């Protein structure tokens, strides 16, 4: 068990910079998730931590010891690979015990520990099989077993659940979290799935094109995104972006976004008279009650999920969503479509217009259109 300090890490492949000046302090026993779209450098960062790739500059300190130049074998870490990387010529027992054997643990103890790990992962009856005779979920457990049996200082996991079906993913997600809590090993977990990040992490590191965008707890990232990218990436369906002018009337600062009056905090005063981008989460919208000011919209699509419904609509002149769209799967709508997530709709919504308003306690996130940074 150990804490980790990543200091000013840079990685270049030729002229391509895969990691820009990454710094991070991980506390002992913490569960950190690296999240970001494909190609943003998550795996690269993990491989540098493991010692499988050399850093161009920067250093890595594990448990107070500078390991930047240390071979992977000497770092006392365990890694679960994106494609599991089980040894096909060895049985499950030998796969799990391989790391112990390499470290010269005696046979009896290897067997004991392998069996204990197998029990924890419920794969005791698979120990004599070879990987090719296992299902995807079983292989995943073996890969986990290979990591936990060593009782390393640090776990590194690179999208270990990405090859599993949805139901198994949810189950394994919970199991991995529980396992990590129980043994308390510092863990860095890579995923491109924001749901995994939100449900598993103590803290999330969100990355884009090799640059760390924000580091914080799931709640902090959800409630106080540092920029439009984070705001759009965290949360599903993704946050709606509208543009509007900051103005002041008798009830205070507000923005007129496509006909909806959005009250905003005094912090936006500096932008008075200027156009800013407002981020509104789909769940912040609701059917307008009574004659309160509201948006009159015509749904282009209603997706009903039983307890809730996603209402897709467009507002004339609002194409802001394209700013970050297309970069990841949670922001698929590049055409300025907005979404409201409505609960207890009652009567089916179809055809005709509906009136949407802002929920009373809903927060409106403001972003500078030039820098895409949050205004606060």
């Amino acid at each position, binding site marked *: 068990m150990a804490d980790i300090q990543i200091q000013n890490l840079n990685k270049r492949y030729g002229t391509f910079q895969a990691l820009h000046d990454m710094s991070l302090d991980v506390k002992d026993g913490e569960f950190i998730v690296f999240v970001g779209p494909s190609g943003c450098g998550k795996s690269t960062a993990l491989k540098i931590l493991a010692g499988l790739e050399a850093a161009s500059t920067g250093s890595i300190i594990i448990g107070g010891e500078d390991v930047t130049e240390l071979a992977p*074998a000497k770092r006392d870490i365990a890694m679960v*690979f994106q494609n599991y*990387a*089980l040894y096909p010529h060895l049985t499950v027992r030998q796969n799990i015990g391989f790391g112990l054997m*390499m470290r010269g643990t005696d046979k009896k103890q290897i067997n004991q520990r392998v069996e204990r790990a197998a029990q924890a992962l419920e794969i005791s009856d698979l120990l004599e099989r070879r990987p090719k005779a*296992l299902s995807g979920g079983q292989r995943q457990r073996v890969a986990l077993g290979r990591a936990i049996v*060593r009782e390393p200082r640090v776990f590194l996991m690179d999208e270990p659940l990405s090859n599993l079906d949805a139901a198994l993913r949810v189950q394994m997600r919970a199991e991995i979290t529980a396992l990590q809590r129980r043994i308390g090993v510092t863990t860095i977990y890579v995923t491109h799935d924001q749901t995994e990040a939100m449900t598993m992490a103590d803290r999330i590191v969100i990355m884009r094109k090799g640059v760390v965008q924000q580091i914080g707890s799931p709640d902090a990232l959800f409630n106080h995104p540092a920029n439009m990218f984070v705001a759009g990436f965290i949360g599903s369906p993704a946050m709606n972006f509208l543009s509007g002018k900051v103005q002041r009337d008798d009830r205070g600062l507000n923005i007129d976004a496509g006909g909806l009056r959005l009250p905003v905090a005094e912090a936006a005063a500096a932008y008075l008279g200027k156009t800013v981008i407002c981020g509104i989460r789909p769940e912040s919208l609701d059917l307008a009650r009574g004659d309160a000011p509201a948006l009159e919209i015509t749904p282009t699509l209603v997706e009903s999920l039983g307890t809730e419904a996603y209402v897709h609509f467009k507002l004339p002149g609002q194409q802001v969503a394209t700013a970050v769209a297309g970069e990841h799967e949670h922001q698929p709508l590049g055409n300025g479509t907005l979404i409201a997530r409505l609960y207890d709709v009652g009567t089916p919504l179809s055809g005709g217009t509906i009136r949407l308003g802002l929920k009373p306690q809903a927060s409106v996130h403001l972003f500078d259109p030039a820098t895409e940074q949050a205004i606060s």
Partner: protein
Amino acid sequence: MKRKLWQSILLYATVIVACAVVLFPVYWMVVTSLQPPGSLRAYPPHFLPPDPQWQTYIRLFIETDILRWMANSAIVAVAATGISMVAAVLAGYSLSRYQTKSSENVGLFILMSKMLPATMLIIPLFGIMRSLGLMGSLWSLIFAHATAIVPFATWMLKGYFDSIPNELEQAAQVDGCTPWGALFRVILPVAAPGLAATSLYGFVLSWADYLFARTFLANNADSWTVNLGIATFKGEYQTDWNLVMAASLLAALPIMIAYLFLQRFLVGGMTAGAGK
């Protein structure tokens, strides 16, 4: 899917014809080896020898040095294959894993020597062996065969290594192996079918060679290989074809045995189960 009857008939007919075409020469060798030399040109030919002459095989062992020649061939083939495999495994692995701008060119350069006809290589090799004082020694043939085996073996093995995911040796390294340890404990066992196929290729190439043996060893009857020895049965006026065929069948035996022995490695997936 169930095959229709006519499909089955067609399938088996094709297989039988193919086998007949491939096996007939071998069968004919057997028949020839069991007949007196004179009856080779008999018309109509005998498809089953009326009076099998088994003593031809006994003559082979008594009157000729076939056992020594086979031993020489075996020494050369095993040594040439062994040396080549060491070189080709390391070369193929580094070409597969440590890709630099030059590695592509080096790879092509290695292959180029394979594109030249063997007869062209033999002249410089002759000069080299003579200045090394290896003429007439089995070593000359071992090295010559290795030069012929290594380029192609390197490429065969590079292909096998390419098909093994990088993450396997990364996992091994995280598990405590050095890069060499990962190669020996994980990559080579996983590549076993490739190693088997490549060794077999090398062994056959060496065993079947006549040209190099003829060039380097002709003057030293003690180091003749089996092909060289069999060639001396061919007289100026008359050839004992039954003896030639009997010896040739015997010479083919080790290849068949090697093939049977390695067969289980040659079929079946090798990396199955490593990944998703």
